[in-house]
């Protein structure tokens, strides 16, 4: 995945500390998606991915920060979202990305499903926390 960090200079931010914050993060992403002219299907996919990653951050990472910004290129427009937590990290990322694998009582589809719902997906994780970056183009 390319580095879209620069776009975050003008990012919207939501701190996630409880489940109502996940709803706020979702709303922030939806607003940006609408603003960038994304189709309803793409909007819904992006918002759902944000919901999964936001909740993982809350449940397994003890909360964190969601930052989002629109990306404009010559031919296309998209939304970039970053989820950063300072939790224990994911020991085995490949395992975590396996459909149906959960360390808790979930469906084990959040992480792998979120990856399928967006165009670009990047995850880095260590003992200091986890950061997931996603991007979805408008069409």
């Amino acid at each position, binding site marked *: 995945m390319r580095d879209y960090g620069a776009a975050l200079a003008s990012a919207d931010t939501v701190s996630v500390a409880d489940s109502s914050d996940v709803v706020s993060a979702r709303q922030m992403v939806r607003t940006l998606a609408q603003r960038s002219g994304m189709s309803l299907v793409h909007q*819904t996919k992006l918002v*759902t991915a944000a*919901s*999964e990653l936001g909740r993982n951050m809350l449940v397994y990472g003890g909360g964190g920060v969601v930052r989002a910004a629109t990306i404009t290129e010559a031919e296309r427009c998209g939304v970039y979202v970053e989820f950063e937590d300072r939790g224990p990290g994911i020991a085995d990322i490949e395992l975590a990305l396996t459909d149906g694998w959960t360390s808790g009582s979930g469906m084990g*589809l*959040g992480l792998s*499903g979120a990856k*399928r719902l967006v165009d670009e997906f990047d995850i880095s994780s260590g003992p200091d926390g986890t950061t997931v970056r996603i991007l979805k183009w408008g069409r």
Partner: protein
Amino acid sequence: MTTDSKLPLLVETLTAQRDAFLSQWTRTVGEDLQGRLSLAELGRELGELYESILRALTGGDLDSHGENFAETRSLLIELSRNRARQGFTPTETARSVFSLKEVLEPTLTSDEKGAQQYLQFARLLDDLGLLTTEAYVRTREEIISAQAEQLLELSTPVVKLWDGVVGVPLVGTLDSARTQVVMEKLLQTLVDSDSTHAIIDITGVPTVDTQVAQHLLKTVVAARMMGAQCTISGIRPQIAQTIVALGIEFGDIPTNASLSDALRQALKEVAEDATEEIRGLL
């Protein structure tokens, strides 16, 4: 009168002119509240407060958090709670206390000794006024969380759609608390209305993620355990595509695009069940 008070002059004045001060205080507050509280009730409230402040002042120190003012504090908390419930603003509530300053000012500030005691008393009233704001906010928070709970109840209506068919139109997000309420209501309504079919409509659910899906599945399983058939309706195209991409499978749970399709299907099945029952009897 013997007193340990640090403000003997104040206590003396408050005692001597009790009636005049109290009626003026009541009038001032009454004007501020613009008749939304009867003067009689206000007079009683402020009278109690006046007496308790006077007793506390007579007792000695001026610490609003101290032992002396315990009674005053509980009266104020009760007053703020009532005002919060009656819809008065926190400012109006605090002003009820502050306005005693206005009432006393002309009498006390005419000489230096009085002015000094007035200032100390004014500071005490400021503290007491702030106390009402704290209590007010706490009460509002209680009211809001009670309303949120009620809303949770209200926003999960379970209705009998037809003979034998119960519908659950879900609106908003489906978290664990909500799922619990929906599930209980659904199961109870199935029993009460002697229904065999349940339709859970998710037209009003903006995001169906793995958590929502898991909660939906749990609800369906519970309904099935009661012997009811369960359908999920109102799956809009964008939601269908998202669910598929996420990898969620609803298994053998019937789904419908619209509530009316689901209802038509359920009615057909209810009719078939009835025919079979009749055949069984013959």
